[in-house]
């Protein structure tokens, strides 16, 4: 069986600075992996490299999705191939209505798949249904994308987009940052609803607390651009108790 995502000896730099120094990671469909690591370990770089952001240069290795290399693909092509990134800091788009934005994204997928574009009325219905599960109000849907949203609202909006786009590979970059306990619970519940045998997730986080809500199948510890240790969900607890330094020593 071909793995959904296969990262092979991945090296990447930002500017002249090497950040990722040989990452190997295989994720199969249906699995939830967590990557934990201290600040500056390369966590966010990894999410941007997977999504193909400009300025994040792959200097060695490969990323395969369903056996095909992503490296030559533009960010929008990767997205349409099923790669989704929930942003740590979702970006404001002033004046761009939420509904038009969401519909443009869904229609881009549909066009790629050779399907008909979705009409406005049908779309509003679908969005409302999914939004309800995430506690997103109609008023929020009417506003411009991310403009004036609270931290929690922004994160919920990311999960709503994931629910609409139904990616096969979802990367969640520090989804817990800036959330209070209640917001964390709502967002996590949303994510858990989207766990699916046909979808894999890569949850990137600094803190163990998110993994109490979104329980991973595997945990990897990232430090200084390499995966130092991999294990089951109990590895996260180990980090909680002895800190990253302790885990890193063990590697």
């Amino acid at each position, binding site marked *: 069986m071909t793995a959904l995502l296969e990262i092979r000896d991945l090296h990447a730099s930002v500017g002249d600075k090497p950040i990722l120094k040989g990452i190997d990671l295989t994720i199969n469909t249906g699995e939830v992996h967590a990557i934990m690591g201290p600040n500056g370990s390369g966590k966010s770089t990894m999410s941007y490299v997977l999504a193909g952001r400009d300025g994040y240069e792959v200097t060695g290795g490969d990323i395969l999705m369903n056996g095909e290399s992503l490296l030559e693909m533009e960010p929008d092509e990767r*997205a349409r191939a099923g790669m989704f990134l929930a942003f740590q800091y979702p*970006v404001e788009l002033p004046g*761009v209505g939420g509904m038009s934005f969401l519909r*443009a994204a869904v229609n881009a997928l549909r066009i790629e798949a050779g399907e008909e574009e979705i009409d406005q009325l049908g779309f509003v219905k679908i969005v409302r249904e999914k939004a309800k599960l995430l506690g997103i109000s109609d008023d929020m849907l009417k506003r411009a994308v991310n403009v004036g949203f609270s931290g929690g609202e922004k994160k919920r909006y990311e999960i709503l987009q994931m629910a609409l786009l139904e990616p096969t590979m979802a990367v969640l970059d520090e989804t817990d940052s800036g959330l209070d306990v209640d917001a964390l619970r709502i967002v996590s519940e949303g994510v858990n609803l989207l766990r699916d045998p046909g979808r894999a997730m890569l949850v990137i986080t600094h803190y163990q607390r998110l993994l109490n809500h979104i329980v991973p199948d595997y945990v990897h510890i990232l430090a200084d651009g390499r995966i130092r240790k991999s294990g089951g969900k109990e590895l996260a607890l180990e980090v909680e108790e002895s800190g990253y330094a302790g885990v890193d020593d063990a590697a």
Partner: protein
Amino acid sequence: MAATTQTIEQVEQATGKYKYGFVTDIESDKAPKGLNEDIVRFISAKKDEPEWMLEWRLKAFRRWQTMTAPDWAKLDIPPIDYQDIHYYSAPKQAQKLKSLDEVDPELLATYEKLGIPLNEQKMLANVAVDAVFDSVSVATTFREELSKAGVIFCPISEAIRDYPELVQRYMGSVIPIGDNYFAALNSAVFTDGSFVYIPKGVRCPMELSTYFRINEQNTGQFERTLIIADDESYVSYLEGCTAPQRDENQLHAAVVELVAKTDAEIKYSTVQNWYPGDENGKGGIYNFVTKRGVCRGDRSKISWTQVETGSAITWKYPSCVLRGKDSVGEFYSVALTNNMQQADTGTKMIHIGEGSRSTIISKGISAGKSQNCYRGLVHMQPTAENARNFTQCDSLLIGDKCGAHTVPYIVSRNPSAKIEHEATTSRISEDQLFYCLQRGIGEEDAVSLIVNGFCKEVMKELPMEFAVEAQKLIGISLEGSVG
């Protein structure tokens, strides 16, 4: 098919190149090239005009000869040979038209191609159209229905013959013949345009629209529009324009005058899409236009909304003279320049009346190697007790070879007047672009989405039929500006 859907589809069919660049093969009746008193007489005779109109034209022509073209705008205008232009061109056809059936089918086909079906059954819902082809108005629709409401909507050449007292009273009352070089030129040689009169207490039952098309080579287009809204009346007027794709530059020097009396309101919207020239700056229309409205009566209101994506060079400042007490002037503008286009555009708000208010929202978008300048004047005269103005000028840059400039002039001669001015300049951020791309939206669609968001405050002022078209137009005009 609903007219709106039809418009959308036609715009969608555009491939990114200027889609109105075709030429209609039609026989025309032209004046010889050049400009002198004989040409002015020729035009007047062709139009069967009364003596007073000819005298007015000649006075303007003599005035024009003593004037020089303005050079204060941030524009690089190559010298124009005014003797190398045809000042009159009309499609050849039977003298008088009684109905649309008598219009040359080639002409009707041209408007069809432009997305402006003149055939009344297929008309845009509730929009009356006056179509001006080169120098003459070829068709005006819904006239009968309008006349039942007492509304006059006809070519200005007809108004000169049929309503001389109205024309004599108002033409030149807002923009005098010697106002500026291009207005003087227009006053001497204007060939057609629309005339609108809304009687007292009448709310015009439909949107009025004029569609301007330059077809002939080496022809200038000099149309003149006059709209009078009598006491307590309302009218919404739309204007659209296109031209064939040609290597030479063509001159368009229009004059638009608006008069709003007590409690009257005029809403004037423009989607300007003259041929902008190619990516190297070859060809395109010189759009040198004088537009001004006067709020004569108390509580009268004039609102200009413009979406400018075309023309090689734009020199245009739709203005409001706020004479009436508590009168209101508004200016909403999107000016988009790409490739080698240049635009110097803005507005003037002249506050005379007590309690007069004005709002200016200007959105400039520059891409390619274009230069885009907002130039605006807010003038509070000593009589403008408690007058207010709010101005917001936002510029968006796409790429690193274009320019955005904001030149606000503010004069306040009344200490109780309030003036606010806000301005921003920004770029489409890499963050915003990446966010859209990550959602699977292609780069050009993403830019179009972000730019339309940037213009939203202005777009929402446009009537529905135009808003959809304008949105697509912005996407099309930006094609090739990224990547």
